[in-house]
């Protein structure tokens, strides 16, 4: 009886069931708080035609950027992209589609998706290209557009520590989109730095309760820094 034990011992097991043309939500902001080993596993599997929902698309050779190398991504839904030459090239060639979404709207779309809310109204993007073709309504004298929630076949999430039940905590700003991503996957896979015994994490300090998590794997992280700035070298 596995009970609530969600720990898997291999990346193959962690990403089992991922198929071509699926949608994957990935946590992370830039290269901070990204599920490095799960992304590497998707590359290894060669799954293609993917729609990837993530704030950014990594850089050349790291993060989600490595999924561009074999053209595994069909469409990106992001707020800011183009930190990588390969991304730009595939976009200009028409090999890659991008749906630019305001950052707060993207976070809220994931949150709503995970919370069973199909759509919401926001002032963000009203009167701009983002609002074109979307339903708008006026509430108390202000105009809002309707934005639909996002869910995915898989959510890949990075946390600092988790127990076997999938209860987890994030570290510093590596939290970012991970808590919302965790709620919005049909299958949510959590890659963590450390798996601790059940009962070790203080219940009131848990960021994401295990109910949202289907699989947990312990990874090794490079944690590459995108822009190193120090108070001397700034």
């Amino acid at each position, binding site marked *: 009886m596995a009970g609530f034990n969600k720990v898997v011992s291999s990346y193959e097991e962690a990403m089992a069931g991922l198929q071509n043309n699926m949608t994957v939500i990935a946590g992370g*902001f*830039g*290269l*901070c*708080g990204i599920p490095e080993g799960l992304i590497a596993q998707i590359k290894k599997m060669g799954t293609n035609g993917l729609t990837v929902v993530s*704030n950014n698309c990594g850089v050349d050779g790291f993060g989600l950027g490595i999924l561009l190398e074999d053209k595994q991504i069909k469409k990106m839904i*992001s*707020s*800011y*992209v*183009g930190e990588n030459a390969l991304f*730009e090239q595939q*976009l*200009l060639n028409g090999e890659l589609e991008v749906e*630019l979404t*305001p*950052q*707060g*709207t*993207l*976070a*809220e779309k*994931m*949150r709503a998706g995970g919370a069973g809310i199909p759509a919401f109204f*926001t*002032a*963000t*993007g*009203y*009167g*701009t*290209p*983002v609002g074109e073709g979307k339903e708008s309504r006026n509430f108390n004298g202000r105009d809002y557009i309707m934005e639909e929630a996002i869910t995915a076949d898989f959510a890949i999430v990075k946390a*600092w520590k988790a127990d076997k039940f999938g209860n987890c905590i994030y*570290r*510093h*700003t*590596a*939290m*970012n*989109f*991970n*808590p*919302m991503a965790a709620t919005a996957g049909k299958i949510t896979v959590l890659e963590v730095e450390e798996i601790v015994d059940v009962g070790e994490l203080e219940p009131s300090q848990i*960021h994401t309760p295990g109910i949202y998590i289907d699989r947990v794997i312990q990874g090794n992280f490079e*944690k*590459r*820094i*995108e*822009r*190193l*700035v*120090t*108070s*001397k*070298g*700034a």
Partner: protein
Amino acid sequence: MALSREQIAMRVAQEFKDGDYVNLGIGIPTLAANYVPKDIEVMLQSENGLLGMGAYPHEDEVDADMINAGKETVTASKGASIFSSAESFAMIRGGHVDFTVLGAFEVDVNGSIASWMIPGKLIKGMGGAMDLVAGAKNIIVTMTHADKRGNSKLLSACTLPLTGVNCITRIITDLAVLEVKDKAFYLRERAPGVSIEEIEEKTAGKLVVEGDIPEMTI
């Protein structure tokens, strides 16, 4: 003389009040953090999920898990809090952030702003800019008054795709401080040594000049 980037940032910092929560965009707005008056406290919000952004780390403090919205390594100040992107944008979109300062390509007399997309050039995305202009209580736009070819960036109507509509009330350029209201730019201050004529010449949208226009104190 037109203001330098640092001088624009110095003038921006004069707008802050004690106890303000402030979000600073990339570029000139970020520089404003260096000029916060010593007798007030402001707390910087970074939209990737940090309220209370501190200085850049010393080499031995660098932590890959501590970055700002520009993806630079940072530290947290004393009294900081860290949270998710949804929480971060709830405070932005819910109007809890007192000030946001951001750059722009164009602003018009309706208070609309274009800052994220130039058709024909590679479009990288709006990041959090659309949320910030829709949500902050006070928005200050910093930019040069005219582009390198001398074309005004203060227009009757923006020509580029918009970031937000009817949301900008204050603009600080290298030449002037302006308020946007009643479908016009109201000149409030001019840069030291800059004439009203020069500002008029470089403002394409309707400019209102009322009474004496003081020089900025930098």
